[in-house]
């Protein structure tokens, strides 16, 4: 009995050590955020901010003009992509889960294959396209690429939910 108990304790200790190892990079990011660059440049790393604790990195980021611009850009693109993608993908999901139609199988196959396409297999072409219509460094240019990239996955995820409701709540368009 004691051997089993000892084994359990050893496993728990191992699990805790692994948890610390796994979270360490995240902790290191937080730790570095509260230490000034001058101190971070020293050859001996500081595992806790301690006496070097400072908010200066945060005030620096906020007072730096480009931070809010970048944040605003990220938020705008995210909201735009999520909104457009949800509407388009919802309609697509209704189509594939509630209707049988010629070409449905090809459409599903295309959705699945597109999800697998690696970005680096396409980015040269996408860059060329966006630059040729003068949309480099614009919200629209990035969003067009992102929307296309996330629609297949979203349709695939939504199709289960759209197919879910029992037939008593089936939408009017599906009845003959």
């Amino acid at each position: 009995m004691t051997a089993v108990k000892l084994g359990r304790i050893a496993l728990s200790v191992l699990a805790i050590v692994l948890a610390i190892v796994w979270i360490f990079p995240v902790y290191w990011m937080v730790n570095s955020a509260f230490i000034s660059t001058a101190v971070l440049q020293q050859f001996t790393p500081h595992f806790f901010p301690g006496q070097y604790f400072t908010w200066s990195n945060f005030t620096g980021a906020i007072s730096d003009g480009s931070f809010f611009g970048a944040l605003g850009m990220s938020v705008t693109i995210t909201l735009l992509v999520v909104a457009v993608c949800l509407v388009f993908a919802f309609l697509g999901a209704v189509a594939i889960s509630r209707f049988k139609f010629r070409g449905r199988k090809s459409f599903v196959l295309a959705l699945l294959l597109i999800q697998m396409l690696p970005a680096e297999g396409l980015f040269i072409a996408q860059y060329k396209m966006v630059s040729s219509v003068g949309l480099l460094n614009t919200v629209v240019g990035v969003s067009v690429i992102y929307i296309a990239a996330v629609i297949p996955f979203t349709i695939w995820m939504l199709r289960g939910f759209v197919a879910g409701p029992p037939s008593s709540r089936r939408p009017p368009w599906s009845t003959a």
Partner: protein
Amino acid sequence: MSAHAPGPRIQPRRTTGIPYVLIVPAVIALLLGLGYPLIWQFITAFQKYGLAQQFGKPPEWVGFDNFADLLWNGEFWAVLVRSLLFCVVTAAVTVVVGVLMAQLMNAVGRTVRLILQVSMLFAWAMPVAAATTVFIWLFDRRRGVVNFLLDAIPGVDMNRFDWLGHPITFFIVASVLIIWMSVPFVSFAVYAGLTQISDEVMEAAQIDGAGAWQRFRRIIVPMIRPVLSIVLLLQLIWDLRVFAQITLLKDAGSKSGDFDLLGTYIYKLGTAANDYGMASAVSIIVLIITLALSWVYVRELIKEDEAQ
């Protein structure tokens, strides 16, 4: 669930225009963001499309010349072999570590499991750019924690060791970074599979005298095989497309071609050499490799879709 019987399966009319109308927005978005670039790329792969063409000279058709050039290009083969090797090793280690982690989660008490899971969730939630930046700090030759800790071990001299300066250690760092990022997904997926195995089966096996390894090999692995194969396949596909991590690590380390994988190689051909024809040809090859790899997975999903 058995309380109310499922309603009759919806049998919609076969010939109606509605589904086509419904998929129009998605199809247009896909054609715009992926279809057009894909076609352009396919065409460009068969053209001579260099700097002169970017300044307005019409591109020339060269047939399979770009592909033939690649065939005789030592750098391309080196990059391809390196990428495949990196992908296979990283994916294999990720899955092995992920399975061991899942087993550990299953073996320890609730509180310890929760601590381990929360810590993995944090690692999983970290954006790629932030994670790579932190790893660059950790492996920094002068100020990095890794060299500091290794050097503290008596008899080990890792003072100022330049991890990102040598191809082998560069790819070890890249691999450790990607394994660190991917293990949470694998171990959560496998852990979910492990919880499906009933305790009675395991107990019965134990009473019959099956050792820990036998139970793992003969019961656990066969029962979680579907999860394992899907997870391994996804890791292989994802590890073939590690662009951001390699680019950022190269920015911190060396610009040399010895540190390129397929993604950064295409990027270099396209942006630095301005050779869109060659870049497109390599891209097509990457797409073909990925599609070949994913075909097994896609076939499973299609079956699942048809069974619905």
